[in-house]
């Protein structure tokens, strides 16, 4: 996955992501692609969750999946989640859950609850940072005010880091793939460097939903695991998602 939150020169915030999934879950030799992403793509839907006929939040989901990986509370905040690998991973949480220790929250149920119930960027950040979980994760959160954008690096039980936008120091975007931002990514899977190169080439002056879509269309940020790209504009309250393909030559991840 690749998620980013960027602020343009006018203080407008954009949040976008590529949802990559299905690694090692079966390779389709005939079509030269992973199998699971090809079955996930037609399940991709945009959802408008309503209460009293009014939008509470919107999301991009796979039909049948009730949690949220990509979502927005219009005018308030945007949220995406990227996988984080750790030896202290979800399987430990599942074993604890089966053995009756149920203080942790399932990742996608946490994101769904935050989108449903949090009423501000700060409140969402607090809940995502401080709720015990069954599995580690990265939460990428954007707000609606200048400077409201961060990557929250979570272990199952603690918040390890919150990496924020910092315009005074020239950090006009935060970008997360699947590795702790203070560490070098796995050399076999460095999507961060090409993504940041394109962000820097685009510059803050020219960042927009269109230019972000270009960046998320650049290989290997776009790869064989990419099922959809989502573009979110929190102030406009819009979320648009597109199923993707990665024509050869293309990285398997």
């Amino acid at each position: 996955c690749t998620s980013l939150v960027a602020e343009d020169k006018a203080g407008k915030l954009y949040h976008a992501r590529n949802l990559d999934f299905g690694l090692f879950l079966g390779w389709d030799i005939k079509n030269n692609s992973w199998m699971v992403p090809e079955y996930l793509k037609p399940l991709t839907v945009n959802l408008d969750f309503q209460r009293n006929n009014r939008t509470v939040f919107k999301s991009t989901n796979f039909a049948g999946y009730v949690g949220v990986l990509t979502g927005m509370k219009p005018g308030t905040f945007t949220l995406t989640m990227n996988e984080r690998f750790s030896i202290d991973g979800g399987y430990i949480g599942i074993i604890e859950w089966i053995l009756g220790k149920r203080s942790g929250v399932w990742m996608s149920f946490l994101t769904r609850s935050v989108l449903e119930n949090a009423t501000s960027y700060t409140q969402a950040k607090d809940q995502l940072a401080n709720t015990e979980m069954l599995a580690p994760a990265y939460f990428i959160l954007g707000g609606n005010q200048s400077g409201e954008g961060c990557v929250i690096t979570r272990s199952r039980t603690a918040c390890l880091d919150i990496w924020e936008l910092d315009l005074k120091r020239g950090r006009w975007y935060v970008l997360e793939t699947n590795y702790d931002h203070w560490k070098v990514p796995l050399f076999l899977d460095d999507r961060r460097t090409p993504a940041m190169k394109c962000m820097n080439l685009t510059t803050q002056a020219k960042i927009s939903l269109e230019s972000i879509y270009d960046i998320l269309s650049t290989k290997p940020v776009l790869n064989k695991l990419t099922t959809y790209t989502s573009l979110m504009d929190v102030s406009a309250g819009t979320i648009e998602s597109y199923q993707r393909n990665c024509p050869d030559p293309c990285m398997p991840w």
Partner: protein
Amino acid sequence: QFVPPYTEDCRKGMYPPTGPTFKGSVPWYKINLDSAPRKRWNQLINDKKVELTNLIQVIKDLAIDFFPSGKLIELVDKGLAPLVDTLPSPFDEELKGIADVSGVPLGEIMLFNIFYEVFTV
């Protein structure tokens, strides 16, 4: 470059999405949170149950590749289904509703919904 990692120059002019990297747009659905958790996903799942069943089948085929005896699938169907009742509301009822309409066994819907935690295995 035509060798891994197949990097390329930063793309331009890809929006609006067209061409070989664009597979298709994504439809919109409303989910009414005022309706019962067990019913609120009915319309969506009714529309998508073929695709959902296909996805679950491809994962089951993979499981059979690794565990030809079928024991793993049996474990999912028998072992995961009761775990749905341990989920907080409204997720327990929502998953049951999805299993009802799609016809996919409840344990397999549970697996799909906790796949993030399972995948770390």
